[in-house]
């Protein structure tokens, strides 16, 4: 089943044409990796899926992004509901300067999903899903900023999970983390795909190979190649892709 379909997507920052005619179908309950050199538009592509590009001054988007066959760029799309359905985790962990509990509960409260003791249940469930519960269960009222980098990143994942998303976007979630924290998050990503559709941007080719079912290679704003991860890695059709995954880009 196709969960996300991107059609003829073009994005400009002022006059800078950052994404050129992207077409891509993402399957439900899979992990799709987006790779490419720095500045090629990976983050922008990801942010086009929850319309986070809109908050940037001078950004213009054309084309369609369909989630469950609904174009999210339609006039009558509720963008706040959309962002609830499409969770996002950023490159640098960005917990809010609130307690651990409040961070996870934030989205739930914003969307008035439940109240009272049910919120505590949701917080617990989300932290468990993000494999963080055991580490923080005794200090839920501490500031989230007291957590380590890897813990903060898992907290951000838990925060996104708490609002019942369908799709999770991860923008280089491990780039600020050490190998052990990275391994934990990679394991988590595999597990998340049982329930959610996961799209992950990564710089790291090995990581893409380890965690993803499908992989896309982006270069200078164009989608060069897209397919099952194994095929991309074992049998790339494009020369550029091959060069990139064998480290030829330096």
């Amino acid at each position, binding site marked *: 089943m196709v969960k996300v379909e991107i059609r003829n997507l073009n994005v400009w920052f002022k006059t800078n044409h950052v994404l050129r005619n992207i077409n891509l179908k993402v399957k439900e309950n899979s992990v799709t990796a987006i790779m490419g050199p720095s500045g090629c538009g990976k983050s922008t592509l990801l942010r086009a899926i*929850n319309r*986070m590009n809109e*908050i940037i*001054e*001078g950004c213009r988007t054309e084309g369609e992004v369909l989630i469950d066959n609904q174009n999210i760029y339609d006039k009558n799309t509720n963008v*706040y*509901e*959309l*962002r*609830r359905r499409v*969770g*996002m985790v*950023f490159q*640098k962990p*960005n*917990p*809010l*300067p*609130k307690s651990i509990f409040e961070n996870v509960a*934030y*989205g739930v409260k*914003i*969307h008035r999903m439940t109240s009272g003791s049910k919120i505590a249940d949701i917080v617990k469930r989300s932290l468990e899903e993000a494999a963080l519960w055991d580490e923080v269960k005794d200090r839920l009222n501490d500031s989230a*900023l007291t957590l380590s980098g890897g813990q903060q990143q898992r907290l*951000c994942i838990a*925060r*996104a999970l708490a*609002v019942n998303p369908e799709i999770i976007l991860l923008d280089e979630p491990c780039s600020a983390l050490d190998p052990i924290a990275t391994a934990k998050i990679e394991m988590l990503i595999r597990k998340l795909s049982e329930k959610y559709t996961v799209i992950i941007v990564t710089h790291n080719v090995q990581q893409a190979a380890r965690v993803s079912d499908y992989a896309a290679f982006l270069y200078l704003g164009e989608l060069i190649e897209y397919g099952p991860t194994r095929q991309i890695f074992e049998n790339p059709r494009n020369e550029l892709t091959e060069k990139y995954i064998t480290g030829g880009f330096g």
Partner: protein
Amino acid sequence: MKPIMRKLIFIHKSLREEPIILILFLCASSSIIFISLMFGFLTMEGAQAFFTFGINFLIGRTWETNANLYGALPLIYGSLMVVSGALVIAVPLGVAAAIFIVEVLPFTFRDLVKSLIELLASIPSIIYGFIGLVFLAPQIASFFRIPSGTVALTASILLAMMSIPTIIGVSGEIISSVPKEYREAALALGATKLQTIKTVVIPVSKSGILASIMLGFGRAIGETVAVLMVAGNIAIIPEPPWNFLSPVYPITAVIAMQMGEAAVGSLEYSALFGLGLILFTITFIVNTLADVIVRRESKFKGGVKR
């Protein structure tokens, strides 16, 4: 002991390499020297008044030059009254405007509006005083049907007009320094702009805004010429004390009006310096508190840059 020795050796070494450091160091220390000198001289010149009247210099209710009686309570009250009136008007308006400019106004207008407001802040207080006296006071008089428009209310309104640009400037700076990551975190979870402002931007910048209000208070209580021209300048505590339609005589106005006539070394002269010392102390405390707030905040937030 040891670190000091090490530091001295270090200073000695770097002085040999670059004697210019000594000059730089002296310039940097000048602020400490000046502020101490100010405190010292105000205290010295004001001492006589404090010795003569004791605590009554602060809580006495009569300020009369002819009787050589100096009790500053009506003046202190007048200053506080005018300033609190001004802040009640200026703080909500200023903070709201700052939020609007930073969070709502499209980027293309932002620079322009910010610049215009900065210009507004640069207008000298004597001009505000002139406008207040010639245009605002008559309006107030006719609106409230009182014989003279130079009353506490006029001073408060004028002072509010003067403080709003400053409050906008400082709190705008603080609001726009809320890290982009925080806003993105909230927005990506589906928060609306308004929710983001309420649940992230304001809580994060709360203490900074508080500090900016304190700075605004310090500025306002030290404002002289504009206030002097429209406050009425009668050394009384209004009846009832919240009667904003009564004239008052703020501290700064007293100093400015009486200094010219006070004979050097007289009790009056000393009393005016005593008033100066009171003002100096008030602003010193307020500024230090604002400093402490900002510093404590940045320590708490660890990762947040200021």
